[in-house]
């Protein structure tokens, strides 16, 4: 006979489980007589109306897009004062340029078969760098895969990028993850996860942990507008709102999700309109304007940290690159469109115009920067490509926190075999060689 599961449930709840007695419950919502406003549990500020009319999305004006500088690099927001001095501005600029130079080199290197996969962030450098520039060092980042600029700003070094891409012994992931799936304990960047949108509820969980710690820090969560179609996005925003989690959601709306154009991804007013639906303070910004991204993220961070509330930022941009090295986007969009976008507006050239107007940047400095950056990237590239692979013992580590006795035995067996037949095993390319077991 089967044990009766029900028997395990006590018929009367223990005292500790009986917290909700009528006297401790808050008074419920009631509909006052003769009120002109609905006070039902599900909506409390809604006026009664005798007009039978539906709210049509097309009647609601699209949420405006915030700019700090315009396409000519001229400041259009005269009210906000940004704390971007020369040093910070130049760092922001250099990091955008470095990300774009690294992207070009790595894209080509994949084409040459030297790495297996890569994703560039062309056109979106301003979103990544501008938002990261507004964070505090101890803030936590959950990113999608196209935010290399944010890592760059935080101090993820070219050596760190290259080690991950070449899966060498310095790759924190020990060669176990695909290229561009970066992570950094030091920079509080959680490992990038391939299944779309999974990082969004994770970010909320991390934010909740910070909240329980009474930490002033926040979580920054990046994702694309395509990922925002996944259930995880919706679940995450709703929980963040209901639990008041200190998280800033930043959607890079770049017009495409691989081949799916934004207009087929959703019918509403972008991703921003959803924030309002979930009761989250929301702003839409021009993603080609790094200053706007910075200003919005800084204010959002303040809200998340001080007022312990989630915020949503939708940054508009255009993915001028192919989706990844596995994609040829000219199969689904015209090359002229892309060329047009590249020519017309770009976060790097726009910011440069502003820098030049401030007399903080010159053509000579530009040439020098690009030459030097190229050299730096190539130096890191060559070094990482030559670096040895992780030690052989890593075959047996990390599936579990502590290796099981079977795994320990297997490792011992491998050691014995290698010691018995040293000539049969050339472990020169692995860290520590034969001693690496």
């Amino acid at each position, binding site marked *: 006979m089967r044990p009766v599961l029900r028997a395990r449930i006590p018929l009367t709840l223990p005292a500790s489980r009986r917290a909700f007695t009528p006297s401790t419950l808050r008074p419920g919502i009631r509909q006052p007589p003769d009120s002109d406003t609905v006070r039902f549990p599900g909506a409390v500020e809604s006026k009664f109306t005798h007009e039978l009319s539906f709210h049509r999305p097309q009647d609601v004006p699209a949420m405006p897009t915030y700019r700090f500088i315009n396409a000519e690099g001229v400041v259009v927001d005269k009210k906000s004062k940004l704390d971007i001095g020369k040093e910070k501005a130049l760092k922001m600029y250099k990091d955008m340029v470095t990300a774009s130079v690294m992207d070009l080199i790595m894209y080509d290197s994949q084409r040459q078969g030297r790495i297996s996969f890569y994703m560039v962030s062309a056109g979106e450098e301003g979103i990544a760098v501008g938002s990261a520039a507004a964070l505090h060092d101890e803030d936590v980042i959950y990113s999608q895969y196209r935010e290399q600029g944010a890592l760059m700003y935080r101090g993820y070094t070219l050596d760190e990028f290259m080690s991950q891409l070449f899966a060498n012994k310095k790759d924190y992931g020990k060669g176990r*993850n*695909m290229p561009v799936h970066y992570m950094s304990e030091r920079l509080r960047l959680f490992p990038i996860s*391939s*299944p779309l949108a999974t990082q969004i509820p994770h970010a909320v969980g991390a934010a909740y942990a910070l909240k329980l710690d009474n930490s002033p820090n926040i979580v920054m969560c990046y994702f694309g507008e395509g990922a925002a*179609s996944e259930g995880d996005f919706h679940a995450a925003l709703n929980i963040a709102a209901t639990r008041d989690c200190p998280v800033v959601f930043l959607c890079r709306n770049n017009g495409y999700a691989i081949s799916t154009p934004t207009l087929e991804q959703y019918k509403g007013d972008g991703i921003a309109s959803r924030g309002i639906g979930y009761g989250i303070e929301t702003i839409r910004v021009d993603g080609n304007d790094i200053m706007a991204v910075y200003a919005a993220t800084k204010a959002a961070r303040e809200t998340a940290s001080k007022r312990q509330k989630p915020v949503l930022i939708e940054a508009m941009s255009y993915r001028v690159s192919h989706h990844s090295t596995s994609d040829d986007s000219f199969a689904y969009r015209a090359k002229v469109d892309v060329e047009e976008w590249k020519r017309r507006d770009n976060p790097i050239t726009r910011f440069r115009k502003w820098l030049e107007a401030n007399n903080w940047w010159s053509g000579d400095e530009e040439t020098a920067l690009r030459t030097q950056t190229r050299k730096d990237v190539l130096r890191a590239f060559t070094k990482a490509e030559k670096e040895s692979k992780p030690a052989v013992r890593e075959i047996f580590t990390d599936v579990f926190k502590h290796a099981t006795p079977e795994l320990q035995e297997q490792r011992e067996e491998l050691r014995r075999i290698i010691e018995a037949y040293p000539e049969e095993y050339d472990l020169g390319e692995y860290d520590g060689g034969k001693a690496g077991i």
Partner: protein
Amino acid sequence: MLFNSTKTFLTRRALGAAIKTPVVPAVARLPVAVKLSQVRYNSSGTKEYTVRDALNEALAEELEQNPKVFILGEEVAQYNGAYKVTKGLLDRFGEKRVIDTPITEHGFAGMAVGAALHGLQPVCEFMTWNFAMQAIDQIINSGAKTHYMSGGIQPCNVTFRGPNGFAAGVAAQHSQDYSAWYGSIPGLKVVSPWSAEDAKGLLKAAIRDPNPVIVLENELLYGQSFPMSEAAQKSDFVVPIGKAKIERAGTDVTIVSLSRCVGQSLVAADNLQSKYGVSAEVINLRSVKPLDVETIVESVKKTKNLVAVESGFPMFGVGSEILALAMEYMFDTLDTPAQRVTGAEVPTPYAQGLEALSFPDEHIIEKKVAQLLRV
């Protein structure tokens, strides 16, 4: 709207009639003449097909023959599918029958289940089965169980398909084999093609089968060519679900395998023959569920030795199942304890060397069999 389907499930029969008025665009009435680029001919009437083309032909034929069939998934229409399996279908059958969805596996798998509950026969493509993890509740809790829980009133003729198992250099989150996962669920049928004929015949059988069927394809096989017999090129060709195929007859050992491992097992069998004179019988399971126990038992009666080969994780897998069956049905016939060759107990690593160490290859299969037979 795709079809006039405003009625509730209780009036399904009435709906069936409504559905028979096909909303098939004119282009769809073109003969099923194959417009496939990679088909190669030879004299006997057999042609070389890639697995991709075989799947494409299966879809085209079913769309052509049955107006209830439609295809949905991420990038299946305009982009021709992430792996080009649905190439040309949008052009032929129009945008009501080949539809791109937003990126929400849970959403479109659920929509496929809903359309199936309403009498259609959707074919739902996942970019990879790995992404179907987002949709697994729809597949299992709704797709697999509704027929039973509705007292048999409500069938769910949905086909879920996509590449399964590891590919090259795509790491743990893109490299899982779901044979055991779906194979364990009552209410689902699960097929796992290896050759082009398998691919075409099983996919067509899946679409026609009144139950929810999981089609586990393999990305590494898509570009591989196989001979396709004249019969298999016809539009009435199906491979019955639940029947295994003996790909190579032998007398000394039975190797039971599925999907890509069938090809590896065949190579191993040839090597065993030439090196040791061992005659291995290779069984291609074709179906994971129902599993063709009889073919395995009959083969083992002859060979007295059994090795299961798969690329899933070792525990609770297809191999475990076959070995359990050996214990139940073949204990007295076996000369040696049945063995299994499986993937390694590790989330699939990215690095090429590590990845190679994580899965069976021809050499390992050969070695395992040689050890078993002490040759």
